[in-house]
């Protein structure tokens, strides 16, 4: 019989369990655990008959056959990949790099299709072959090398902090227990900040736009990610500034599906060419405003 007393005691019991459970458990743990080989990642590729360039994989052939390079870029990151409501174009450093690669590989920078990725969706989309490569402020890490092939470094960034002008936070040392730090799910910034400031409260969002909106709404004290992205945010809103020295190294690489070594070498060749013929410097200065170091 479902009596009122029964229902009430059930609720109280559940509420008690709820409080107990939410009390325990340590949010700082997520980053540390290097999980066992993720179930979804492709096994070491066995691409036999490769292609022309040194290495294996079919992606390069597919791209040439298709006549179009499909690249995953950010749509919410000023300076690297930002969708402009006026006109609907996506613009940024990564976008221009993608176009330059299309020119090198296919001969025409217009033979390109851009798709939106976030830190969370980029690798799944690459593995599904929805995109040929990722050029989306992606840091090269050993962990990620297990999942994808990276090109050579094409941009050197470092993790840093963004705060509202006038904030008492001046650097990583000021992040203490109770400080609310905003970051994006699936980014290396999350793992790093949890390691460097384990007592801080980290709030994770789906993309940088949401995180920045949260910062603007005062839902956090600071936002942490690569300084390059933070400079973009500074450009969008003069009330915010980057503080402190970069406290990690974030070398960006272009990611390709694991096993696509032919594509990888082609991309690296293209990158070297862009460096030597000055194209890279032009793109860099256009977006970053300084010469590449």
């Amino acid at each position, binding site marked *: 019989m479902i009596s009122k007393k029964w229902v009430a005691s059930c609720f109280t019991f559940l509420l008690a369990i*709820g409080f107990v459970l939410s009390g325990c458990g*340590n949010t700082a743990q997520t980053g540390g655990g290097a*999980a066992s080989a993720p179930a979804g990642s492709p096994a070491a590729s066995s691409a036999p008959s490769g292609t022309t360039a040194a290495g294996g994989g079919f992606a390069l052939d597919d791209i040439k056959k298709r006549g179009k390079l499909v690249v995953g870029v950010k749509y919410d990151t000023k300076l690297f990949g930002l969708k402009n409501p006026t006109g609907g174009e996506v613009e940024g450093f990564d976008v221009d790099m993608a176009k330059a690669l299309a020119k090198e590989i296919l001969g025409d920078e217009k033979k390109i299709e851009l798709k939106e990725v976030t830190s969370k969706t980029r690798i799944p989309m690459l593995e599904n072959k929805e995109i040929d490569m990722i050029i989306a402020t992606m840091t090269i890490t050993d962990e990620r090398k297990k*999942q994808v092939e990276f090109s050579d470094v094409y941009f050197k960034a470092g993790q840093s902090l963004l705060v509202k002008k006038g904030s008492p936070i001046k650097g990583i040392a000021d992040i203490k227990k109770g400080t609310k730090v905003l970051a994006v799910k*699936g980014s290396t910034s999350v793992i790093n900040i949890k390691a460097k400031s384990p007592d801080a409260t980290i709030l994770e969002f789906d993309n940088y736009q949401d995180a920045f909106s949260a910062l603007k709404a005062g*839902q956090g004290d600071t936002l942490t990610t690569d300084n390059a992205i933070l400079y973009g945010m500074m450009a969008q809103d003069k009330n915010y500034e980057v503080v402190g020295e970069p406290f990690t190294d974030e070398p960006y690489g272009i990611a390709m599906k694991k096993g696509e070594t032919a594509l990888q070498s082609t991309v690296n060749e293209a990158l070297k060419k862009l460096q030597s013929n000055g194209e890279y410097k032009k793109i860099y200065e256009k977006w970053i405003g300084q010469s590449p170091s």
Partner: protein
Amino acid sequence: MPDFSIFTDYFPIYMKGFGNTIVASIIALIGSFVLGTIIAVFRISSVKLLNWIGTAFVEFIRNIPLLLVVFVFFYGLPSVGVTLSGFVCGTVGLTVYTASFIAEAIRAGIMSVPRGQTEAAQATGLTYIQTMRYVVLPQAVKIVIPPLSNQFLNLVKNSSVLGVFAGFDLMYFGDQIASETYATFDTYVIVALLYLVLTLPLSYMALRLERKLAQTG
């Protein structure tokens, strides 16, 4: 077969999310019931202003997404100086949103009680509030329980919206774990199972309640 090491490695985090989902759901459940009852009473009140407030509330909130409601609390409220955490915004949004549906269900229940009863009660000297409390509402409750239990089931499912606003609930942590480990299938299966632990019993209880009420008529 899901790889359960994901579960064991991250067990404390799953539990923390699970716990927060329960807490948020129960708070919203109680809150929306209280708020819903108040709004329902407003809607049937003869005071034009209260009537208008109740109707406006229900019609507006019912027709916009829950996501939007929480979005307004989380990103919009700070512009008038009120900054609430993701958990609070989510829970409050959940309460307000569910209340609009509960208000409608309760109103239907109240209207189903014959007017004669209200008139008789007031004729014997009971005030309006007393009439509501002792005569009308208890009878209305019987009609109201099936749609109400349905709404509570929805509430638990809707609590997942906290995941979008850093609400530290089951959805949030599940998402976080999936993003970091890339074991998406396994993680989401575990999250699904944990939600079912909450929703299936609720579903079953709602079914039994409906059957029982249908019998006593």
